[in-house]
């Protein structure tokens, strides 16, 4: 604990900025374009869906530099304390030559109207920095899922990326030491407090400080990645008089993984959680997590934020509920742990007292006799909000009967919810056609979904039941089928290549 600092500090390019009077909800995009005149970063949607505003945020985590693509439109400047921001204006090498990504985009005719292009370039530059450099088509799809292009049909951009991944180091590699040094110099362990006409900002130094702030100011708004709260500001034009930014609070960034399971602190992003959750969840569920938002969204958005905002269609909660996750809540020094499903009381209502906050979530490691599956169904495969998300955990007894079942759905009710009648229809029975028929019946009684722009109630009910059929086909008594989803089928379609 080294006192209080009344200003946030971060780098953009090679310039260090200290801001003492910035509004806590000023978006990075508006600040770059309007205050700094850096207009290479574009606004396409102002809600984190199109990626035209993608920038790189580089942080020193421990002694390791981490490069992340994020959407500047829903990133508050106040969240960038201690960061290095790199924009499209920084990508060209100091000698004026194009970055390998830029050169590949030019050579492969990867830009047409050019408006989305800076965002693509930033995602591609960031993708080159990711662990295990993206080489295959699926990795490139994932890297670019958060960037929309209306002109090219993506083909030349993917061709450019294939070339760019083969290019050697870039000038950012050469700058890494320098960036690490400058970010290290910004570390002071201070609590940040800004209080001005435009609002108040607190960046607590640790979880205890956060607990104190929240007791003292229960109306303060906790912001971790702002992938949801950002839209309250950019679309809802809401005032947030007191923002508490927790994204970099060290003890909330804790990830623990042991034989019992995984604990994720409140500031752990989906991108960070993805690797550890993949360790305890089987592949189809890991695929659901890969399909949460996009790289940019997962780089900012946190697992606990996805829970705390109580969205009926958040993709994380149903999976975590099925997996038996527990939520860790804290108010002052009082902590309690509840089953995740109990947190969601009703639409927009959660079991959280004034001044109380989500400190973390823990997910148990499933036993060898447990099968977990989750499937997301949406209009578009990537970067879409679920019409329905079904998550299933079946634990089998030695005799082959289902000893216990946890079935949770998103998009089927006002909150993420368990399907208790379906679970009852499964438990104690062998996972056969008869049980499947009973479970399909039961799920109709479990939910009365609504019709909206994503899907009709008919579709939601039908698909919910059909996901039970898919579950049966995937992990029923017969052999698991490889061809139960269109994506899996497509993965095998490469052999059809043009002769």
């Amino acid at each position, binding site marked *: 604990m080294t006192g209080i600092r009344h200003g946030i500090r971060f780098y953009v390019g090679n310039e260090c900025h200290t801001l003492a009077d910035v509004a806590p909800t000023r978006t990075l995009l508006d600040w770059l374009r309007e205050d700094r005149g850096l207009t290479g970063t574009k606004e396409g949607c102002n809600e984190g869906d199109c990626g035209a505003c993608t920038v790189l945020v580089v942080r020193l985590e421990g002694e390791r530099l981490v490069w992340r693509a994020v959407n500047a439109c829903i990133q508050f400047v106040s969240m960038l304390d201690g960061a290095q921001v790199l924009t499209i204006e920084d990508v060209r090498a100091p000698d004026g030559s194009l970055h390998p990504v830029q050169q590949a985009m*030019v050579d492969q*005719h990867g830009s047409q109207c050019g408006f989305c292009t800076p965002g693509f370039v930033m995602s591609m530059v960031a993708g080159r920095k990711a662990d295990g450099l993206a080489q295959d088509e699926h990795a490139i799809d994932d890297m670019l899922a958060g960037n929309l292009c209306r002109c090219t049909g993506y083909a030349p951009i993917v061709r450019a990326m294939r070339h760019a991944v083969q290019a050697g180091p870039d000038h950012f590699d050469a700058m890494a030491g320098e960036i690490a040094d400058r970010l290290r110099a910004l570390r002071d362990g201070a609590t940040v407090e800004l209080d001005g006409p435009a609002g108040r900002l607190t960046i607590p130094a640790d979880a205890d400080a956060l607990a104190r702030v929240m007791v003292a100011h229960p109306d303060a708004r906790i912001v971790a990645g702002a992938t949801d709260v950002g839209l309250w500001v950019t679309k809802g034009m809401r005032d947030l008089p007191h923002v508490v930014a927790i994204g970099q609070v060290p003890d909330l960034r804790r990830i623990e993984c042991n034989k019992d399971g995984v604990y994720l602190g409140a500031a752990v992003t989906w991108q960070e959680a993805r690797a550890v959750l993949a360790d305890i969840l089987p592949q189809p569920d890991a695929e659901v997590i890969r399909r949460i938002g996009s790289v940019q969204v997962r780089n900012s958005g946190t697992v606990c934020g996805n829970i705390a905002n109580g969205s009926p269609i958040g993709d994380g909660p149903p999976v975590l509920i099925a997996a038996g996750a527990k939520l860790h809540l804290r108010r002052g020094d009082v902590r309690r742990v509840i089953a995740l499903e109990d947190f969601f009381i009703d639409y927009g209502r959660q079991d959280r007292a004034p001044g109380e906050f989500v400190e973390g979530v823990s997910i148990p490691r499933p036993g060898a006799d447990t099968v977990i599956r989750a499937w997301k169904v949406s*209009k578009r*495969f990537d970067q879409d909000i679920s019409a329905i998300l079904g998550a299933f955990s079946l634990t089998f007894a030695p005799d082959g009967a289902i000893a216990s079942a946890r079935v949770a759905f998103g998009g089927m009710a006002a909150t993420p919810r368990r399907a208790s009648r379906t679970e009852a229809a499964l438990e104690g029975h062998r996972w056969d056609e008869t049980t499947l028929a009973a479970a399909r019946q039961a799920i109709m009684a479990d939910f009365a979904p609504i019709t909206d722009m994503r899907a009709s109630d008919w*579709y939601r009910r039908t698909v919910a039941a059909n996901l039970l059929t898919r579950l049966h086909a995937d992990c029923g008594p017969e052999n698991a089928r490889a061809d139960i989803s269109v994506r899996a089928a*497509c993965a095998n379609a490469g052999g*059809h290549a043009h002769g």
Partner: protein
Amino acid sequence: MREDTPMADGNSFANASPPAGDGIVPGGASDSLRHESAAMHVQGSATYIDDLPEPRGTLHLVPGLSTRAHARILSMDLDAVRQADGVVGVYTAADIPGDNQISPVGKGDEPLLATTEVSFYGQPVFVVAATTRNAARRAVRLAKVEYEDLPAILNVAEARAAGSPMVWRPMEMKRGDVVAGLEHAPRRLSGRVTVGGQEHFYLEGQVALARPGEEGEVHVTSSTQHPTETQHMVAHVLDRPANLVTVEVRRMGGGFGGKETQANACACLAALVADRMGRAAKMRLDRDDDMTMTGKRHDFVIDYDVGFTDEGRIVAVDMVLAARCGWSADLSGPVIDRALFHADNAYFYPDVRLRSEPLRTNTQSNTAYRGFGGPQGVVAAERVIEEIAFATGLDPLAVRLRNAYGTHDRNVTPYNMVVEDSITAELLPELARRCHYEKRREACRAFNAGSPYLRRGIAITPVKFGISFTATHYNQAGALVHVYTDGSVQVNHGGTEMGQGLHTKMVQVAMRELGLGTDQVRITATTTGKVPNTSATAASSGADLNGMAVLDAVRRIKRRLVEFAAAHWNVGEDEVRFAPDGVHVGQKVIAFSHLTRQAYFARVSMSANGFYKTPKISWNGDTGQGRPFYYFAYGAACSEVVIDLLTGEMKIDRVDILHDAGQSLNPALDIGQIEGGFVQGAGWLTCEELVWDRAGRLRTHAPSTYKIPACSDRPRVFNVELLENAPNREHTIFRSKAVGEPPFVHGVSVLQAVSDALASLDGYRTCPRLDAPATPEMILRVAERMRHGSPPA
């Protein structure tokens, strides 16, 4: 008559297409030159309007939109808006000095700002000017507008039921006796296909920056595909002559037809405030406002009645094409007309009657969108083919070939234009051969026989797309070319750059004619101050029209330089030749810059206007007869898909396209248009769904709810080839063909492939009658119907 106009002699372009291996300048026409802005695009240094430095005191505008689909305005209390932080002014229709009208077709049915009544949810009612954009966005929400609701008509069915008026005269195209033809046909069937609309989703939203000048001048930088029309609209609204209004656009961040007329509102409102306040004013729409306010692709309900033989040959077609036009005419008339022009796609209909119903509804005023109604007509044509295939048990490809336009007979369209250039009958089998259609079709069927949850489908569809504006007077273009004394060249023309590479192609035309490199030819922003009275950059016509105008201008200058050089160096004019290594003058080779400097000293004008008008075309919209198109562009696509019977999810596995771009001006750019057009067309027919609620409010008004294809939606295998050795038989610019819209239609092959996959559910016995968009829900619904014989509850 100007002596050196290329139009003076129709044959003067006989040599426009270069003999192979001769005269092609590296980077010149026919070469895959990179987009002229590519290096700027990738560095973020290509400026769009919102990136321009703002003049001191620039005001930021946000429109106040109606929250009723159809209502009388009882009162408007804007005091709270006026008093909000940062607000400088609030403007209503009463503040408009000129005509409160922006109907692009002079119908007078589209007020810029609503007065006493609102006609759709999202109509601009007032505009707020503030010192910052966010201040204006906050303030606009403080308005209190009282409405009295009126009956709202939201879609085609309601419009028909209510006897809603048409926004445009219905069109009828007919030949022969369709009633007798249908009655005497050996086989007959009828049905209905519905096709959804489409949001343009240009990545750069609508934006305009207006700056006041002297004595009523106003300069508007507008993201518009039609600067001249924008100029006229601003002039009308401000009650000024056109010579006080300059409209300029360097580039757009996408257009796709969505900035042909829809740019006018922002430009006019910005100009209005700039003029009133004497300060620069900028309006850049928020994405939600943009999607709520602006028109989209028309959705259609198309009823067909078709007679055919047991061999699958069509004998008569009767179709009614009804479209949701929205609250005003906008371009709906010509759009719906073009749906009729393409309701034959590539097929000969012996007896035919096509009728349109352009219906007025209380929704956004639907507008131009890549293909301009044509793709909707093609969807209907392909449904008819599909129906016949299932009815006769023939492969749809066989039915397509059996009905393709002939070259000597069976070659007259429903509007009595002779199709002189049909290649569909060769193109379809050629693509089928290249992509192994037959083998893969069998493989799909074999797969489906053993697959409980996944089904594969494959389809091959052609496109024949008419090139020219059907409004004949639009088929003209101008250019202005300057050659400076140092030999550098500046090219300006009436077309606009929205990503399609038009400027690149125009640079290539000049490079090729003068033997210059990219660094010597520069394109500048399109502005009404340089080239007046231009047409919209639309109808795929940009390169065709402006390319010829640029060529005309360049050749005028070239002719003067040749005359000068011949006289100056005492050689024959035929001994002066422009080549990449310099200007050949007799035995000498001199630098182009040397020639231009000498020409300057000799007082030779090195600036010229160019002009072009498309020959041969004529069209009478009242009789539905004529030759509306100079030529047709052709292509064929084969798509293979896999669908999930449990969820309706779909994935495009593989796509093969063979497309006719004539003698391509730039193969790389053309392939880019084809790839991008295909994915956009496939998106329209699959994941892109517009949803309105009962109140008439568009619920899919942002990318969070409106899903255009993402990267992983592109076909896993995507082979695109240009048809080889296929110069345009007409005298187009270097024998190329237009390529903006035709490839969009290739997306229809995806809809047909999904249908093929669904047909497996009953052993390919019945036509699935899959409507668009084929969202997962639509696919699942049809699957349920195919399995159970009745639609799900």
